[in-house]
């Protein structure tokens, strides 16, 4: 018998203002991380972040 998929019982909508604020912070963090990865990549050779396409 196949496993049942969990359903979203809350069906809570995303609050745009809250989400946009969180996203701004996250975007900054991802940029910092991408800089770090780029710097380390130059030091250590090829890195494996291409799948995520952090820097666009």
């Amino acid at each position: 018998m196949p496993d049942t998929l969990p359903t979203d019982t809350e069906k809570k909508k995303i609050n745009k203002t809250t989400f946009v604020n969180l996203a701004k912070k996250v975007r900054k963090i991802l940029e910092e991380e991408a800089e770090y990865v780029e710097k380390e990549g130059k030091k250590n050779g090829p890195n494996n972040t291409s799948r995520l396409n952090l820097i666009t």
Partner: protein
Amino acid sequence: MGLIIPPDLISSLKNKHLLLDTNIFIDASKHPEDFTDFFNILKESDITVVTIDCVRIEFLRGAPNENKYKEKEDYFDNITKIILPTNVEIIQNSYELVKKYKEQGGTVAIADLYLGANLMKYKSNIYLLSKNTTELPSTIFDLKYIINYPLNKGIFTYGVYKIKS
């Protein structure tokens, strides 16, 4: 302008699950207004947005300190808190996928294999949304829909996939 959703995508996915790849969480942080609208359309339409631990880990890794980790976690959980379990069946399906990918599997990330393994497990009840279209070959996956997202410069394209039956 927002994401251009194909006309019958929503009705086809009603009461089903949409599995998100890591690149969706990343792109949503770049364009949160449009992605909020998109996610809320899904929620209103009884489409359950889910993901897997592998994607969550891939997204959270690299956080330079605990505060930033928490901010990333809060953001991620705002999109979905529903994580599908990674169990023995998922691992077994991943091995099956490795065989199916053949030589193409050499460049495939573990997260892609686990996403595919979930499509294999839940079959007609789940679709995958991903921007990483090069790692989802048509020999294994059916591209059911394309979502385009026109931007000031360029267009992002996302595929909505099912496992080939």
